[in-house]
């Protein structure tokens, strides 16, 4: 078989991860009902032909619960990461474009939020908003933007010094015109990659705070709930309750990471040599 060149390998990685993620989402949406159905006649079954991930103490199919949980996580991740990335973009650009005072204020907020441990901030926001889906999404969205915002700010600062921007300024173009026409297109790759790389963080943090009991409600088949319930039964030897959902969560996170890195290599080939 012919060896693939780097670009093809990268494309393959990106393609495989995106397809796999979409598959999980679709499977999760399809197994929505099955994930909640309890049947005491089939409780605590070890993995077998019919239930390949086994069943839990309420007789729920762990495969359906895992898929549903992951798709829920992915959806929350996408939503939260998108909001977070937009906040980062707006603040990053504003910080660099709107003068010194605004820049200092925004930099201060970035430092402030980065100074507080993510998980703590998330728990605070989520609990303040009454937990549940809304609390988690808002929590993740409001706590994940600073690093990307800082990156974008630095990029804009650099752009501001480039000759074509300075010429545009001399020509009397407004700041917003320059930001819109000259800077945004340049920032897009950074933004997209940053966005994709936010997903795994968002997903991990969503499952973490749900695991800790500050996130989604117990009856929802979220991956954090699945894992925290499984903890109670590990001691009795029901390994399948935690193993498969745990492994799949890691796989998803890695896939998002692969997708993000591949995208970066495609959009910004120079970064490969860094």
């Amino acid at each position, binding site marked *: 078989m012919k060896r693939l060149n780097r670009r093809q390998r990268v494309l393959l990685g990106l393609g495989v991860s995106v397809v796999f993620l979409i598959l999980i989402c679709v499977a999760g949406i399809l197994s929505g009902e099955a994930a909640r159905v309890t049947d005491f006649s089939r409780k605590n079954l070890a993995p077998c032909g019919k239930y390949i991930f086994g069943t839990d*103490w309420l007789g729920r199919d762990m495969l359906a619960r895992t898929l549903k949980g992951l798709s829920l996580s992915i959806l929350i991740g996408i939503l939260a990461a998108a909001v977070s990335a937009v906040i980062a973009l707006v603040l990053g650009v504003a910080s660099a474009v709107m003068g010194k005072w605004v820049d200092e204020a925004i930099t201060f907020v970035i430092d402030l939020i980065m100074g507080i441990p993510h998980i703590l901030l998330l728990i605070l926001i989520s609990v303040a908003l009454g937990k549940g889906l809304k609390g988690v999404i808002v929590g993740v969205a409001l706590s994940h933007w600073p690093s990307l915002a800082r990156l974008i700010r630095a990029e804009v600062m650099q752009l501001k010094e480039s000759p074509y921007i300075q010429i545009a300024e001399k020509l009397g173009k407004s700041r917003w015109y320059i930001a819109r026409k000259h800077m945004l297109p340049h920032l897009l790759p950074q933004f997209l990659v940053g966005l994709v790389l936010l997903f795994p963080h968002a997903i991990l943090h969503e499952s973490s705070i749900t695991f800790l009991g500050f996130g989604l409600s117990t009856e929802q088949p979220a991956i954090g709930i699945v894992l925290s*319930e499984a903890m109670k039964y590990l001691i009795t030897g029901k390994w399948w309750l935690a193993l498969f959902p745990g492994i799949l969560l890691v796989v998803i996170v890695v896939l998002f990471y*692969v997708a993000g890195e591949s995208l970066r290599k495609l959009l910004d080939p120079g970064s490969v040599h860094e």
Partner: protein
Amino acid sequence: MKRKITAIICCAVLAAGMLAGCGRGADKTETGQTGESGKKGQVVVTMPVTSEPEAGFDPAYGWGAGEHVHEPLVQSTLTTTTKDLKLGKDLATDYSVSEDGLTWTVSIRDDVKFTDGEPLTAEDVAFTYNNCREKSTVNDFTMLKEAVATDGTTVEFHMNRPFSIWPYTMAVVGIVPEHAYDESYGQNPIGSGRYIMKQWDKGQQVIFEANPDYYGEAPKIQKVTVLFMEEDAALAAAMAGQVDVAHTAASYSSQEIDGYGLLAVQTVDNRGFNLPCSEPQEKDGVTYGNAFTSDINVRRAINIGIDRQEMIENVLAGYGTAAYSVCDKMPWYNEECEVAFDREGAKKLLDDAGWTVGSDGIREKNGVKAAFTLMFSSGDSVRQALAEDTANQLKELGIQVTTEGVGWDTAYERAQSEPLVWGWGAHTPMELYNIYHTLEGTGIGQAEYSPYANETVDSYMDQALEAGTAEESYELWQKAQWDGSTGITQEGDIPWIWLCNIDHLYFVRDGLKVADQKIHPHGHGWSIINNVDQWAWE
């Protein structure tokens, strides 16, 4: 990129290694390495972390009393409850109540000393009760006007209103020494009970030692260590042979541990759910009532449409008894509460009441769907399983039940319009009062936890409290449940559905004889060591 993936994999392997390390560590620990467990004259008992008394061992702040009532061990009480939940005596030698029910006179023993050597007098008793009346938020002392010591061994309780079951309150209040009582009493309690609290490592354990000067029969167990831990940790501790008695749950009951047997204790630790009895209406931003469950036929159908035995097998692995009231097996229980499972009868009730099955299999009447949300407290796997099984069983009747895990911060308010899975069960008939008696100023003129009001039921309970003695009141409490024409049973208003009493389960080390237990109340904690002084090693 590759390096990062390698890093992630390494982390996972490291984490797995650490977990495995923990497991092995527990295995290696040999029996009795903690010092006390398995030794004659000593026991090590586990309890849920929630059993640790936050404010210490002070009866004014809930020690022994409140929701999870038990004997205070460190202190003596005036009365006690016997195995069949009738009344016995501890410090009291005699007690009586005046004709009008407003004065209780109690004579106490004169040979009792606190563990600091000072004698226990009627002054101490009066001080304890007056102190509780002022401070207690856990127990209700509003009926007590004042406690007065008339001489060294006689104390009088002057009441604001008659309260016939006062001796049940006297069975949970530990007597504290007036001379050695201050705000830090809970941390260093001095009492006259069977045990002395020797050491308390907060968040971990409490160690009790037998009181050498105890006035009653000398305790057979000299040292009791109580460890606070979750059920899975307790199971691990038992597997490692580190404890003598480990509390456990039905979901672990099938585990076989070498050298341990399973002890199941009957309880009145019941689980059930409320069915709001009124039509929905708003008041101060809270909805009271539920359009579906306000129909009495619906409530009756649900009560007989649930197969409690199947539920006990499914959820509790058989370790439980069917519950038909909040006070099953208590002396004040009315057996009329019991119903037989009858799914067809339940369907007929719904049919006759006009709830017709729609195309989706769910009943409907005048545009109201036969559906409700059944809430349970998040993280309580037994309540969750009961809710799920209820949903499955009611589906057979054409009722759609959605389950939802909620926190206690919102549960009380939502329970005014939606059913919630509750746990109750105490050694006093006041439990009936708390659930079914209307409470002034509550909601829409109703009982405290769920919209329900019945004047006849109220009046029986009021009469019961005014009856001369606790024993005389039993019949009135029974009438409050069902008097032949009205009440809270199937033929009555059935505002609450009771599902099961959960057996309290323990892994007990072979050779340890745990003395016969009285029916445990709600709470899987201190009750087991109520009579630890009578346990024995064989």
